């Protein structure tokens, strides 16, 4: 337990000490080497990089340099990332072997290690983080602390106004005042559906019942989305603080975080954060001496996508099969163990403390008329700058793909972007200039979703993409209601027929009919939205479905049953690169001769396609 005075003292002292993290002109002799410890960089050995730095610094007896682990910087494509502050030097794709050189050249000699400096898409060397095009159009609110603080150290969170919002709420505001601020800010649920957050809080507060609960939905199941994970890994205390604020506002003393067990790093850091907050008396009984009690427990998800649906999540917390309940009653009236329960998603919570500190007006000045604030996207697929981006609502898809994402690699063309994962839809080229907000995306047949944003180039087959999502929903359907359990399976079978070259034109009609029926008659959001990937691809890429059904042709070469890879003898220069790369020795021909493909051996993996420098291989 610490007193409020002690908390303020920590904040003041630590803030001075950490000034160099955010101020390039900080007056200090110290340097901080920040090593990204998000899941992406950790997978490419960033913990070893951190170890090496510490070891070398110790050996060389350098005392004014600290090595810090941080959360995700966002530009995962360039990982592992090392940033040296205060000068803000950005080293990309660092290996454990590079540490020695960085210490020697950068720290001791005061020069930059040129070969490791990050290069932008245009090949320009980037001297500091802010120079990167990737960051220029971003605005970081939910990710404010990611990549700045050590997520396993509560003092660093406190230094950057951490737990100040909670203190202000408990000491100065009534419950209704807090709810009013959130309502005025215009914040809407970031989990996908976009329900106004303040309204949800109000409904739960008004619900009758002594015992109420606050739940954080961190069951980020959308494949290809990692926003919530990055927030939990990079800034776990922001979620704890917001949950406590929510607890005060609705009158709850207990919170649960339901997090995927597939996120071991996030779970680990959450556990540390909760422990530290308890030790400081920020969680527990009589917080800040105001008489308010609040504590948080973690519950692990066990790999079921449907548990991201709020009522299924509640069932799972109760230790049961995660099958959705029929709504109404909504969780605000009858949630965990039948008690009024507030459920928000991680990213929604990550905005709360900022809104309290900076005011509802500030927040609602960002974004569009109906969608306020920022949205975090996990940008992935065929785009140069894969990573985590946070942009004001209303930013266009074109800005995200080309300005922030750096365009499509290998000189290919943009074909479609997929938002909302298995519940969302595809956005084709002609809608690249659509501003991203809840309403606009819905209008063009997609949805905001939780924030997965997958870019596809012109080599992707949209029928097989639709099939991929249906495979996902079929295996994740909980089985409770018939339209979803059987209907999605039937849809998948039709798509399989099309991809195997056994389809017919009538199948397309059947697909559409089924899709509409499933949308209308399923119990929960999973079923109601499961046909979306099919409906939207049919809407924009109908011709491709017809090619599969009628001409039995997959122009993208993805549907193996229909594809036959051949080498154009006109273009082949006989370099033999394809032969060298072929994993099954299916390419025949002697040195400097034109090559041919033995169709019996070919497994249509497409490796030769990408290896040919003369674009001589196709179908």
């Amino acid at each position: 337990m610490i007193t409020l005075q002690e908390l303020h003292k920590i904040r003041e002292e630590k803030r001075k000490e950490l000034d160099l993290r955010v101020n390039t002109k900080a007056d200090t002799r110290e340097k901080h080497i920040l090593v990204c410890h998000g899941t992406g960089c950790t997978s490419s050995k960033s913990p070893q990089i951190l170890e090496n730095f510490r070891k070398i610094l110790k050996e060389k007896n350098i005392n004014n340099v600290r090595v810090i682990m941080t959360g995700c910087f966002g530009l995962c494509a360039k990982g592992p990332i090392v940033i040296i502050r205060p000068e803000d030097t950005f080293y990309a794709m660092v290996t454990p072997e590079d540490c020695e050189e960085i210490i020697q050249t950068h720290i001791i000699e005061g020069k930059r290690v040129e070969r490791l400096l990050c290069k932008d898409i245009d090949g320009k060397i980037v001297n500091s983080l802010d120079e990167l095009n990737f960051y220029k159009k971003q605005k970081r609110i939910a990710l404010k602390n990611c990549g700045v603080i050590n997520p396993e150290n509560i003092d660093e969170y406190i230094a950057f106004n951490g737990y100040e919002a909670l203190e202000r709420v408990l000491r100065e505001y009534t419950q209704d005042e807090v709810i009013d601020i959130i309502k005025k800010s215009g914040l809407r649920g970031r989990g996908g559906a976009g329900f106004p957050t303040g309204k949800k809080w109000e409904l739960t507060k008004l619900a009758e019942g002594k015992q109420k609960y606050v739940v954080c939905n961190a069951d980020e199941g959308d494949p290809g989305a990692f926003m919530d994970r990055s927030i939990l890994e990079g800034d776990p205390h922001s979620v704890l603080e917001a949950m406590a604020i929510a607890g005060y506002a609705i009158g709850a003393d207990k919170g649960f975080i339901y997090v995927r067990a597939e996120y071991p790093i996030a779970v680990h850091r959450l556990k540390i954060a909760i422990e530290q907050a308890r030790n400081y008396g920020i969680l527990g009984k009589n917080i800040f001496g105001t008489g308010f009690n609040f504590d948080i427990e973690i519950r692990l998800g066990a790999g079921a996508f449907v548990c991201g649906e709020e009522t299924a999540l509640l069932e799972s917390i109760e230790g049961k099969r995660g099958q959705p309940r029929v709504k109404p009653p909504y969780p605000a009236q009858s949630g965990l163990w039948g008690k009024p329960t507030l459920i928000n998603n991680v990213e929604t919570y990550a905005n709360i403390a900022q809104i309290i500190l900076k005011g509802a007006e500030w927040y609602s000045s960002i974004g569009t008329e109906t969608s306020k604030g920022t949205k975090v996207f996990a940008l992935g697929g065929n785009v140069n700058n894969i990573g985590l981006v946070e942009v004001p609502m209303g930013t266009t898809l074109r800005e995200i793909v080309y300005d922030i994402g750096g365009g499509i690699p290998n000189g290919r063309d943009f074909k479609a972007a997929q938002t909302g994962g298995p519940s969302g839809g595809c956005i084709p080229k002609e809608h690249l200039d659509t501003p991203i907000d809840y309403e606009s995306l819905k209008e063009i047949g997609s949805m905001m979703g939780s924030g997965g944003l997958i870019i596809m180039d012109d080599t992707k087959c949209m029928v097989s993409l639709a099939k991929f999502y249906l495979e996902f929903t079929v295996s994740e359907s909980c089985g409770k209601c018939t339209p979803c359990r059987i209907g999605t399976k039937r849809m998948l079978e039709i798509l399989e027929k099309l991809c195997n070259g056994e389809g017919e034109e009538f199948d397309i009609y059947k697909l559409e009919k089924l899709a509409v029926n499933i949308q209308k008659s399923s119990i929960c959001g999973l079923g109601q939205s499961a046909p979306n990937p099919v409906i939207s691809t049919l809407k924009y890429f109908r011709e491709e479905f017809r090619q599969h059904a009628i001409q039995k042709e997959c122009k993208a070469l993805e549907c193996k049953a229909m594809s036959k890879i051949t080498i154009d003898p006109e273009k082949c220069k006989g370099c033999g690169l394809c032969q060298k790369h072929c994993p099954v020795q299916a390419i025949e021909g002697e040195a400097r001769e034109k090559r041919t493909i033995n169709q019996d051996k070919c497994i249509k993996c497409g490796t030769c396609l990408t290896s040919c420098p003369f674009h001589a291989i196709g179908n």
Partner: protein
Amino acid sequence: MQENTEKNCCTEKVIDFVKNLEKVYKQEKDNLISMLEEIQEKYGYIPKEAQIELSEYLGIPMAEIYGVITFYSRFTLEPKGKHTISVCFGTACFVKGSKKIMDRLTDRLKIEPGKTTDDGLFSIDETRCVGACGLAPVFTVNGEVYGKATVQKLDQVLDELLKEESN
């Protein structure tokens, strides 16, 4: 993680392990999933002895426990192979060609995803996003992530494992 899993253990050990869990977890039904997680982590599957013990402790019928185990994809009723190779099927990996990696893997090991080879050496899994989208496509071998994967890279890793096993 995989290194900690103990396979082919005897009944008493399993029951002892569950009894130890009982000291940590209260006798409340909502602890079922958390306790199953620990058992899965330790043994790589949920042995029947553990289910019986849990059923008695938490007062939940065996059928219901079976229902929960089969509902969640993290729990399995069969022991895993010595090496688990998982191919990520998150959208980012799918778009970058993880299907080709999986096709090659099932081709070479002659088993379907979710199954274990007869010699008990390899299990193959399709996993949802492991979160290393910057390295897509990704496969993992016993929890270790191999990024920017190609069919060649998979072959290389598989060849090494097979060589290691034949020695």
